């Protein structure tokens, strides 16, 4: 039995019954990483692996490179944060440690500052999809999703601003949840777009997702946008019972642009939900077509403001220059990659004098309309079900020179962040070429329990989450 292939729930049982020693898990993971990561490249700064003793962690978790870990390099896979070792832990890291979860010494690869849908925009080079090494793993949390999929991690954390947990989970055939905005503290998550960002679990199954959500959720005085309401025991939602759940399918999502195989697989998954006792019906989210343009104004505007702090003064890379202004401009010009520069400049433009009303203010108003669509829909149904992505994983390089086409990969995930609601992606089938497809389940704010209940019921009656890529 290879320990690295098991879920956290299975391993915890074995640790409790003293069948295995916790230290042997990290050993198994290190062996797996040494064997396959030269092909997958889920992790960055691989030299960290040799520094770590075999028993340095108990049940370890892999963290995305934008989650601060005290004394352990964290650089958002950007040159501009080269060598940065945070002087403090993110709140999620402190919570994990308190629960006895160890931090794996390598961080996972990502699009620089989470700007991307393919993990190709990393300073360290791309991650490869474990199901087809020529394909992207999705992004921006592509390293976390690939690590879990390839059994290089038991479980992982990612961050999701417009789909960055769910889309890679879908591409890699694993489970990924974006919690309600405010459910999980963002303290120590290096900010991309503060009104959209959320940290969430990437796991091998829904049970581990519930377990991990239990650990990371809750109010944090250090994040004034975290919400002070009670955290339920999410494992209690794992009842394998979908009877009576009202499921909405938005007609605006099932239109042209969706891959035919994805369409068929999703239709079959919805049939399955009905067979399990859920009741599906068509609903309408009329402002769907505005979600991507609204997102790329709001997210880039917030990013341009958040990334102003990277100026070469306090940490990371600094370019040599004769005066201060030149130092700022050269540091940022050389320290940021192409996509980061594109987004900062787009966001700065949207906020600049003369354009604010036409772009930023109009986008904020359209955001209200998108949120209202969901409020209305959730008066009629308990959950909304959609594909996570219109296509399975695409080839590395295929969309690299067409940023607009890349932005459209997020068409089904972006509205969720704009509305602040929770959503999960779970595996629901494979294309003929053997690429995983993800089913997305959305619910109203702070109703992760309903999502987990339906996802778990579906998972219990399907084999998809047990499939492993051949590496």
């Amino acid at each position, binding site marked *: 039995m290879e320990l690295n292939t098991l879920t956290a729930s299975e391993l915890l049982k074995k640790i409790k019954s003293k069948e295995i020693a916790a230290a042997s898990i990290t050993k198994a993971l290190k062996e797996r990483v040494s064997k396959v990561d030269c092909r997958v490249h889920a992790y960055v700064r691989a030299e960290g692996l040799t520094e770590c003793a075999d028993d340095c962690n108990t049940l370890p978790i892999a963290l995305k490179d934008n989650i601060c870990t005290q004394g352990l390099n964290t650089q958002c896979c950007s040159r501009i944060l080269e060598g940065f*070792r945070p*002087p403090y832990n993110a709140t999620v890291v402190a919570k994990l440690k308190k629960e006895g979860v160890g931090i794996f010494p390598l961080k996972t690869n990502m699009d620089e500052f989470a700007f991307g849908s393919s993990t190709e925009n990393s300073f360290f080079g791309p991650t490869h999809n474990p199901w087809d090494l020529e394909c992207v793993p999705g992004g921006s949390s592509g390293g976390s999703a690939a690590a879990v999929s390839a059994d290089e991690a038991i479980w992982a954390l990612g961050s999701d601003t417009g789909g960055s947990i769910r889309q890679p989970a879908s591409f890699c055939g694993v489970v990924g949840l974006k919690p309600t*905005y*405010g459910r999980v503290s963002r303290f120590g998550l290096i900010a991309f777009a503060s*009104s959209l960002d959320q940290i969430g679990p990437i796991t091998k199954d829904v049970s581990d997702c519930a377990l991990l959500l239990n650990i990371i959720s809750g109010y944090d*005085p250090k994040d*004034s*946008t975290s*919400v002070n309401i009670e955290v339920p025991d999410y494992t209690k939602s794992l009842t394998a019972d979908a009877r009576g759940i009202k499921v909405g399918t938005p007609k605006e999502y099932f239109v042209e642009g969706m891959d035919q195989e994805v369409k068929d697989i999703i239709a079959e998954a919805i049939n399955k939900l009905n067979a399990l006792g859920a009741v599906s019906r068509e609903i309408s989210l009329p402002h769907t*077509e*505005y979600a*991507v*343009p*609204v997102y*790329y*104004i709001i997210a880039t505007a917030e990013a*341009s403001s958040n990334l*102003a702090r990277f100026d070469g*003064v*306090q*940490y*990371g890379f*600094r370019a040599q*220059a004769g*005066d*201060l*202004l*030149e*130092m*700022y*401009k*050269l540091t*940022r*010009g*050389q320290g*940021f990659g192409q996509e980061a*520069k*594109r987004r*900062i*400049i787009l966001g*700065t*433009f949207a906020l*600049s004098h003369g354009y604010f009303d036409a*772009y930023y*203010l*109009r*986008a*904020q*108003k*359209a*955001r*209200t*309309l998108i*949120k209202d669509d969901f409020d209305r829909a959730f008066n009629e149904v308990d959950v909304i079900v959609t594909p996570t992505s219109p296509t399975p994983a695409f080839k590395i390089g295929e969309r690299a020179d067409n*940023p*607009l086409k890349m*932005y459209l990969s997020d068409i089904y995930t972006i509205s969720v962040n704009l*509305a*602040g609601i929770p959503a999960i992606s779970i595996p629901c089938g494979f294309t003929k070429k053997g690429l995983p497809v993800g089913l997305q389940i959305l619910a109203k*704010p702070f109703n992760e329990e309903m999502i987990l209940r339906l996802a778990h019921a579906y998972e219990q009656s399907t084999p998809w989450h047990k499939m492993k890529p051949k590496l």
Partner: protein
Amino acid sequence: MPLDRKTVEYVANLARIELKPEESFKLAGQLEDILSFIDRLSKLDTDKVKPTNHILPIHNVLREDQPEPSLTIEQVLANTAHKKGSFFTVPKIIE
């Protein structure tokens, strides 16, 4: 909307980013594509809609003003080679 290289360079300067000439040329084309896609928002009637800048009904979040332990000067300066005493150093601003 059309976006020329000059506008890109003007905005890049506001964002304190030095671009190479080939970068601003490429960006102008890409940003023009993105902006013309974004322009579909202009057909939406938003006159009577209130903007959403934040999804939660949270307004001012206040706490008691009680001092808590914070980072030491050494911790704050640990991530740079450019320091002197308890300060960060930068190129000279005033001659």
